[in-house]
C-alpha cells in the first residue's frame, strides 16, 4: 500500500520553487493556438444575430432573403414565433457563409417582427422594482444568541431580542452599500470551431470544462457523448463563464453537419458582453450595532440585486454578513427581475459582493466610534466563522493582518476617517477587508506513462484556464520522479483524456495535484520494484532524486532514470491516479483559505477621481506548488478587483433596455497606470505546507471592493456607497446626494 504524501517541508526539489510556465514561450510568441486561432481547410464563418430589443415576443422570422445572399451556405434560427425574448442580444439566428463579411451582410437581411413588451432594467431602485412588480422574496432568516423560554413564541422572541441588542449597542450605523453588475470580459470571447469526421464531432471550444461539455453537444445533436471530442489547448479567459457548450456552440456543430464543412462561430465583443454572462449586482440596506470596542453584536439587513430575468437572482443571503458573523442577525434577500443578460458564475460567486456589502458597514462602525479600522477588524475576528481542518481561521487572519499591516505600513499611515492631511485637493486613505474560500480538490484522473527510454507523459481531461495548469502537473510529476520540469510532457485540453473536473471554484490545482501525485507515486513504485531487484535492495530503501534512482543510505548505489526505465522491458508503464473527494483519503490536499487585503488610495476631492497608491494582498493556499504562478494569480485577481471597484459596470438604458456600453471603448477597465503598486504575499508557514494543496484562483478577487471602498471613505470621511467608485459617484456622495 502506497502512502501518498508530499516531500517533507523544506525537502522538495521542484514544487515550492519558482518556475516559468512550461508553455509560456508558446503563449508569448503566438505559437500556442487558442480556440480563436483554429482555422481549418474549407472553413465557413458563422455570425449570430441578437435581438435588438430587451423584452419582446417574436412574431415572425424570415430568413429567405438571407439565404439567397452571396456566399451564404446555411441559416439556422434559434427562436420561433411566439418565443419571448428577455434581454437584448439574445440569439435569434445564425448564418454560416464563406467569409465573415458575407455572414454579416446576410444577418442584415433576416427579417424579424417583434411584439414589444414592457422593459425593466433598473436593479438599484428597489421601490421602482416593487412598483413594476419585478421583485421576488428570495428568503429571510433570523438568528439570535439567546434561547427563548420554552413557552415563548420563538419567532417573536427572536425579533424582540434582536431589537434589544440594537438598543444596547454602543454604536449603531445605518448604511446603504452596493455593487453594480459587471459582465464577463474574457479577452477571448465564447465560441468554437466545429468539424465532423463522418458521424463524429470534433469541437474546438473555448471552455473551462473539456471533460464535461462533450455530452452537452451530444444530446441536442442526437449522437452519443462518445462521438464527441472537445478540445481546448489554450483559453483566453473563462472566469466562470465557460462551463457550457451553449446554444451557439451546438448551433455551430449543426451548421457544420448541415454544410459538410468546418464552421467557426466566435461571439463579437458586444455579444460577449450582452449574452455570455455577468456577475449579479448587490445593494443592501443595513443596520449594524456594536459595543464600544467595535465588536458587532447585531445586524439587520435587506439586500437585493439582479441576475437577469430569473426570480431568485442576486447575492445568496448565506454569504451575508460576510466572514465575521455577529451572534444576532437578520437578513433578507430580494431578487430583482430585469430584462438583462443572465448571470453566470463569476470568480468567487457571491463573495465579492457579500464582502463589499458587509465589510463596508463594519468599517463605518469604526468611523462612527472613531476607532482605527484595523483594531475593529481585529476585534471582530472573534466572530469569524470560517474553519480549516476543524479549527477557526481567526488565528490565520490575525497573522495575515500583522503581515499585511507591516507591508502597508498601516500604523504610520493611519489617520481617522476624513482627518488626513490634504495635498492640494488630494487626500489619501487606508482600507482593509478579508475573505474566505473553499478551493478543495475535486474529481480528477491522471494517466502517467513512463516509457522504457525514460520519457514521461501525463494525460488529463483538464484544461489550463491561463493559470499554469500544465506547469503544476509537470512540477508534481517531476518532483515525484526526481526529474527536471522539462522531462515531463503534459497533455491536457481534450475530452479524450481521463476525466478531470471543470476548472471552477479554485479546484484545479488541488485536483490535478492529487491525481498526478498519485499516478506518479504509483508508477515510481513500479520502477522501484524493478530497480530494487536489480540492485538487490529493499524497495523502501530507494529514492528518486536528481535524475537517478538511488539507495538512500548509499547514494553511489544507483541507476540513472533512463537505466531504471530500461528495466521496464518492451512496453511503457501506464498508471492512472484517481482522486474522488469524500472517497479518497488524503493528506495531499485540503480546503478553506483566508486572505487579508489592504488598500491605500488617493482621491481628488474636487474631481472625484480615485487613484490606487498601494495594494497589499496576503493569502494562504496550503502547500504552494509554484509560487510564481500563484503570485501571478494574486496580481491578476487584485487588478480585476481594482477594475470592479473603480471602473467596471454594465450600463443599461432604462427606456430601451439597451446595454449601452457593451464595447471595449466604453466598458471601462483599468490600465497599467491605474493599478498603483501591488504587493502580493503568500502566507505559508509549515502548518500551511502540511495541510496540502488548496486552490487560490478566486479568493484574492474578493476583498478589493470593500478594501478600496473603505480606503476612499477613510480619505474623504464620506462613504461612497456603490461600486464602482466613479468620479460621478464620488462627487454625488460628497454633495450628500444619491449615488
Amino acid at each position, binding site marked *: 500500500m502506497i502512502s501518498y504524501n508530499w516531500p517533507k517541508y523544506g525537502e522538495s526539489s521542484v514544487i515550492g520553487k519558482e518556475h516559468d510556465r512550461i508553455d509560456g514561450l508558446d503563449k508569448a510568441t503566438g505559437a500556442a493556438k487558442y480556440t480563436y486561432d483554429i482555422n481549418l481547410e474549407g472553413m465557413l464563418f458563422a455570425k449570430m444575430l441578437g435581438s435588438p430589443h430587451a423584452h419582446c415576443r417574436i412574431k415572425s422570422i424570415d430568413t429567405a432573403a438571407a439565404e439567397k445572399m452571396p456566399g451564404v451556405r446555411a441559416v439556422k434560427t434559434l427562436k420561433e414565433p411566439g418565443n419571448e425574448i428577455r434581454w437584448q442580444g439574445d440569439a435569434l439566428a445564425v448564418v454560416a457563409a464563406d467569409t465573415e463579411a458575407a455572414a454579416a451582410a446576410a444577418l442584415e437581411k433576416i427579417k424579424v417582427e417583434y411584439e414589444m413588451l414592457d422593459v425593466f432594467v433598473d436593479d438599484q431602485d428597489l421601490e421602482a422594482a416593487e412598483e413594476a412588480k419585478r421583485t421576488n422574496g428570495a428568503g429571510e432568516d433570523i438568528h439570535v444568541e439567546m434561547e427563548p423560554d420554552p413557552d415563548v413564541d420563538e419567532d417573536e422572541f427572536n425579533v424582540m431580542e434582536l431589537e434589544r441588542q440594537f438598543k444596547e449597542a454602543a454604536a449603531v450605523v445605518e448604511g446603504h452599500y452596493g455593487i453594480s453588475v459587471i459582465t464577463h470580459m474574457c479577452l477571448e470571447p465564447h465560441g468554437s470551431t466545429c468539424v465532423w469526421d463522418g458521424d463524429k464531432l470534433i469541437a474546438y471550444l473555448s471552455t473551462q470544462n473539456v471533460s464535461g461539455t462533450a455530452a452537452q453537444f451530444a444530446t441536442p445533436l442526437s449522437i452519443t457523448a462518445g462521438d464527441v471530442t472537445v478540445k481546448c489547448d489554450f483559453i483566453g479567459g473563462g472566469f466562470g463563464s465557460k462551463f457550457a457548450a451553449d446554444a451557439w456552440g451546438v448551433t455551430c456543430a449543426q451548421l457544420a453537419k448541415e454544410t459538410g464543412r468546418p464552421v467557426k462561430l466566435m461571439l463579437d465583443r458586444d455579444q460577449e458582453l450582452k449574452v455570455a454572462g455577468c456577475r449579479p449586482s448587490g445593494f443592501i440596506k443595513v443596520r449594524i450595532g456594536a459595543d464600544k470596542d467595535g465588536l458587532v453584536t447585531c445586524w439587520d439587513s435587506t439586500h437585493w440585486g439582479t441576475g437577469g430575468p430569473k426570480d431568485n437572482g442576486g447575492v445568496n443571503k448565506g454569504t451575508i454578513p460576510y466572514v465575521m458573523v455577529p451572534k444576532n442577525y437578520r437578513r433578507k434577500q430580494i431578487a430583482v427581475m430585469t430584462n438583462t443578460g443572465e448571470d453566470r458564475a463569476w470568480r468567487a460567486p457571491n463573495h465579492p459582493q457579500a464582502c463589499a456589502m458587509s465589510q463596508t458597514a463594519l468599517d463605518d462602525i469604526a468611523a462612527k466610534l472613531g476607532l482605527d479600522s484595523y483594531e475593529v477588524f481585529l476585534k471582530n475576528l472573534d466572530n469569524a466563522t470560517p474553519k480549516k481542518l476543524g479549527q477557526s481561521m481567526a488565528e490565520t487572519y490575525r497573522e495575515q493582518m500583522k503581515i499585511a499591516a507591516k507591508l502597508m505600513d498601516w500604523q504610520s499611515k493611519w489617520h481617522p476617517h476624513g482627518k488626513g492631511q490634504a495635498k*492640494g*485637493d488630494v487626500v489619501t486613505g487606508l482600507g482593509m477587508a478579508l475573505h474566505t474560500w473553499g478551493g478543495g480538490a475535486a474529481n480528477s484522473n491522471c494517466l502517467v506513462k513512463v516509457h522504457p527510454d525514460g520519457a514521461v507523459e501525463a494525460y488529463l481531461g483538464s484544461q489550463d484556464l491561463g493559470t499554469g495548469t500544465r506547469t503544476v502537473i509537470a512540477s508534481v510529476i517531476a518532483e515525484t520522479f526526481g526529474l527536471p520540469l522539462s522531462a515531463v510532457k503534459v497533455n491536457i485540453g481534450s475530452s479524450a483524456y481521463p476525466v478531470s473536473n471543470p476548472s471552477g471554484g479554485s479546484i484545479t490545482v488541488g485536483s490535478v495535484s492529487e491525481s498526478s501525485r498519485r499516478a506518479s507515486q504509483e508508477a515510481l513504485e513500479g520502477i522501484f520494484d524493478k530497480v530494487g531487484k536489480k540492485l538487490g535492495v529493499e524497495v523502501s530503501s530507494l529514492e528518486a532524486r536528481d535524475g537517478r534512482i538511488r539507495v538512500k543510505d548509499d547514494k553511489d548505489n544507483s541507476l540513472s532514470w533512463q537505466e531504471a526505465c530500461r528495466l521496464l522491458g518492451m512496453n511503457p508503464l501506464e498508471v492512472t491516479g484517481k482522486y474522488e473527494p469524500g472517497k479518497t483519503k488524503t493528506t495531499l490536499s485540503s480546503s478553506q483559505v483566508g486572505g487579508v487585503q489592504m488598500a491605500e488610495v488617493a482621491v*481628488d476631492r*474636487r474631481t472625484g477621481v480615485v487613484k490606487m497608491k498601494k495594494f497589499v494582498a496576503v493569502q494562504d493556499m496550503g502547500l504552494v506548488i509554484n509560487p510564481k504562478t500563484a503570485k501571478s494569480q494574486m496580481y491578476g485577481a487584485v487588478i480585476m478587483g481594482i477594475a470592479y471597484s473603480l471602473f467596471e459596470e454594465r*450600463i443599461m438604458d432604462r427606456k*430601451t433596455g439597451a446595454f449601452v456600453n457593451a464595447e471595449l*471603448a*466604453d466598458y471601462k477597465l483599468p*490600465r497599467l*497606470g491605474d493599478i498603483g503598486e501591488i504587493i502580493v504575499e503568500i502566507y505559508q508557514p509549515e502548518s500551511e505546507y502540511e495541510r496540502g494543496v488548496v486552490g487560490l484562483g478566486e479568493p484574492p478577487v474578493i476583498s478589493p471592493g470593500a478594501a478600496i471602498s473603505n480606503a476612499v471613505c477613510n480619505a474623504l470621511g464620506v462613504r461612497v456607497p456603490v461600486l464602482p467608485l466613479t468620479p460621478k459617484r464620488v462627487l454625488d456622495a460628497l454633495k450628500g446626494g444619491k449615488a
Partner: protein
Amino acid sequence: MKAFDYAAPTCEADVLELLSGEPGETEILAGGTDLVPLMKKMLATPDRVVNIMEVSSLRGVSADSQGVTIGATTTLDDLLAAPELDDYPAIKQAIEGISSMQLQAQGTIGGELCQRPRCWYFRNGYGLLADRGRLVAEGDSRYHAIFGNEGPAKFVHASRLAPALVALGAKLRIVGPTEDDEVALSIEEFFRTPRHESQREHVLSANQLLTHIILPPASGVANATYEVRHGEGPDYPLAAAAAAVRIDGGLVTGANIVLGHVAPTPWIALRAAESIFGWPINEQTARAAGEAAVADATPLKDNGYKVQLAAVAVERALLRAAGFETGGFE
C-alpha cells in the same frame, strides 16, 4: 463592414477627384482609428474609401515667422516629437492625455478633429440625434453635454485637441470641391452642431478636404490643457479645458478659454475669459474663472457632476498655463 472600393491617391487634386459630393458615399481614411470601427459597426458604409496617407504634402510640421503649419495627416506621435510645437504645451498635453500608444502612433491631427462623437446611443446605431434628443435626455446621459444641449444634439464633441487649437486661434486650410477652391477658416467656424442625421460635426462638405492646421506664433502666450479623466487609459475625458493667456506685468491682458467634452462643439468660455482679464492668475482668480465658465451650464438628468468638473478643468488649465501646481494629480 460593407464592401467598398479603395483608393490611395498621392496628391490633393487626385483626392478631390475621388471624393463624392454626397454625404456618406465616400469616406476619407487617415489613421483609421475611428473610421474602421465605425465601418465595422455599419455606422459608416461608404462605397469608396480614400486613403490620404500617401499624399506627402499633407504630412509634417513646419514653422516660420507667421507661425506653425501642421499637415492634416501628421500623426500625434510626430506632433509630440516636433520641436516646432514646444511653445504649444496645450497641444502636447492633450496628446499625452490620449495615453494610448496605438492611438498616438496611428492617429492623425486631421482625423482627431474630424472623429465622430463617442455618444453611446450613436455608437449603438440609434443615431446621433435619436428621437430628437429624447433618447439621451430620458436615457443615460452621464457623459453627455452640459452646454449647447437644448436642441436634439446632446452628445459631446470628441476631439481632444480642439479645445487647445481653438484657444490658440488656429486656422484650417480646406480645399475642394476642386483644387482651386481653397479657404483658410478660423477653427471655431469649423465645428457646428448638426441639425439632422446626415450632417457631421463640422462644416466640411463631403468633397472637401482638411489639409493643414495653421497656428499663430505662441510667443508670450502661456497655454495649457487640463483634462479630467476617470483613469489613465485611452478613455475620453469627462471634461477638459484649454487656456491660452497673454500676461503682461503679472496681469492677464488676453485670454482664450475653451472647454472640451461638455458640448456638441468645443465650447468657448467667454465669461471665464472676461473673469480673469486684468487679474493675475492665482488660486482665487482661477477658481473664479472656473465658476464663471459654468455659470450658464444646463446639465441633463445624469450629468450635473460634470458642471463641477468643467469648472475645475478651467481653473486647473489656467493654473497650469501660469506654471502653478493644479492641486489635483499632476
